[in-house]
């Protein structure tokens, strides 16, 4: 190889980045300079060899991670993205619980499995249940029993109210000559009674709803804790198993190394 400027020309020639003029000049040089011809040929061969280096086919390029947003989450973010699933599940449970409470349904998921009951029809059942359960849970059970009782009382109240109203109408109709349609504030005692009963019933319903709500929330919390615990246990098992496998592999490799070293020494 000759001068620096010639070397620059050679590189330019090799990569086809010479001006027409420079190229012509270098062509002329090549015709007279054997070493440069050899050099160009050999470096071209190197360039051909370089083409043999292919990157692996990577299947996890950014576009494969993105649905709508271009910013791909790191693996940890992807793991974390799952956590809100709990939140969603909890929200779904709450909606279910509220609608169940409103419909006067009882939905419970415990040792007996999934229990769905309508409040009134099953009023006596919880009492037997209470006796069978541990004392710690008894307090809450008692609470739900009173809730059941309240529901029953409400039904009885309504029946009583209906009877009383009918009675009142029957009394009033002949006296004032009015049809029952005209039930207005001209009977202050009756309307006060109705309002009181309605308020009472509303209060009970609210209490009942709150009690069931708490029940379900604490149930859900308990299950969540238990599930998390199980997940952690399984993860721990997996980790320790992987650790054991790695240790085994290391041992095997060490043994192989020892054996190969021994073999290497034997011939001497």
């Amino acid at each position: 190889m000759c001068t620096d400027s010639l070397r620059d020309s050679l590189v330019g020639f090799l990569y086809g980045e010479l001006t027409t003029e420079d190229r012509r000049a270098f062509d002329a040089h090549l015709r007279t300079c054997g070493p440069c011809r050899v050099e160009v040929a050999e470096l071209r061969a190197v360039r051909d060899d370089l083409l043999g280096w292919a990157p692996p086919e990577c299947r996890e390029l950014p576009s494969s991670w993105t649905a709508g947003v271009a910013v791909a989450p790191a693996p940890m973010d992807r793991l974390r993205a799952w956590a809100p699933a709990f939140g969603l599940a909890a929200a779904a449970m709450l909606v279910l619980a509220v609608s169940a409470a409103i419909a006067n349904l009882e939905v419970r998921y415990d040792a007996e499995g999934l229990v769905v009951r309508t409040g009134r029809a099953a009023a006596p059942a919880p009492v037997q249940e209470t006796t069978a359960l541990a004392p710690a849970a008894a307090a809450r059970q008692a609470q739900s029993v009173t809730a059941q009782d309240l529901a029953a009382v409400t039904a009885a109240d309504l029946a009583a109210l209906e009877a009383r109203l009918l009675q009142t109408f029957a009394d009033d109709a002949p006296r004032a000559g009015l049809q029952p349609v005209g039930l207005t504030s001209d009977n202050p005692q009756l309307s006060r009674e109705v309002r009181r009963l309605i308020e009472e019933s509303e209060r009970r319903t609210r209490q009942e709803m709150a009690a069931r709500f708490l029940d379900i929330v604490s149930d859900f919390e308990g299950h969540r804790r238990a599930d998390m615990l199980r997940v952690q246990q399984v993860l721990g098992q997996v980790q320790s198993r992987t650790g054991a496998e790695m240790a085994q592999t290391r041992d095997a490799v060490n043994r192989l190394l020892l054996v190969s070293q021994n073999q290497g020494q034997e011939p001497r």
Partner: protein
Amino acid sequence: MSQEIGKRTDEELVDAAQRGDEDSFNELVRRWERPIFALAYRVLGREEDARDVCQETFLRAYRALRGFKGQAKFSSWLYRITLNLCRDWMRRARRTPVSQVPEGMELSDLAGEAPDAVSVEDLVARREMSAAVSKVMAMLPEEQRTAIILKEYHGLTFQEIADMLGCPLSTVKTRLYQGLTVLRRNLQRQNLHAVAAPRPAALET
């Protein structure tokens, strides 16, 4: 704007992405992720590292997109981000590039991408070739290796390489020349002959 997204130029896509069009940015990612991954892979020599750097490159590009004023080509801008990340990566890990037989590349995969009627011997030879080149490239000093990678596998001009690496034009040529010379010596030592692979268009994407 009604033009099909795949047919738009990088500049048009960058412009739209800067105005908040996610689809345009996604198209840029699709267009450039392979070259960027290949660049990072050849500089770092490890698939997982290259994957991380590739991801980080687009993350940074996404964040910094508003600051990109079109003073360079979008691809050059991306390459520069990737190279900076690679440099940080090597510095932090105090790791020189590892030569690595492309992992996860089975003979059957090679067969899939090879032109028809290629013998198993050829496939094996090609795989050996790939491993050998990756090995001798890993032995080059970083600046020579980078120059050769940008030139050979990404088809940049001398001037583009000089701009990207922040060095004079003549330095780029010297690095290329020295790099090729060292490669020639080391490849001859490996005593391998290139499988007559058909030379594709200068760019491989």
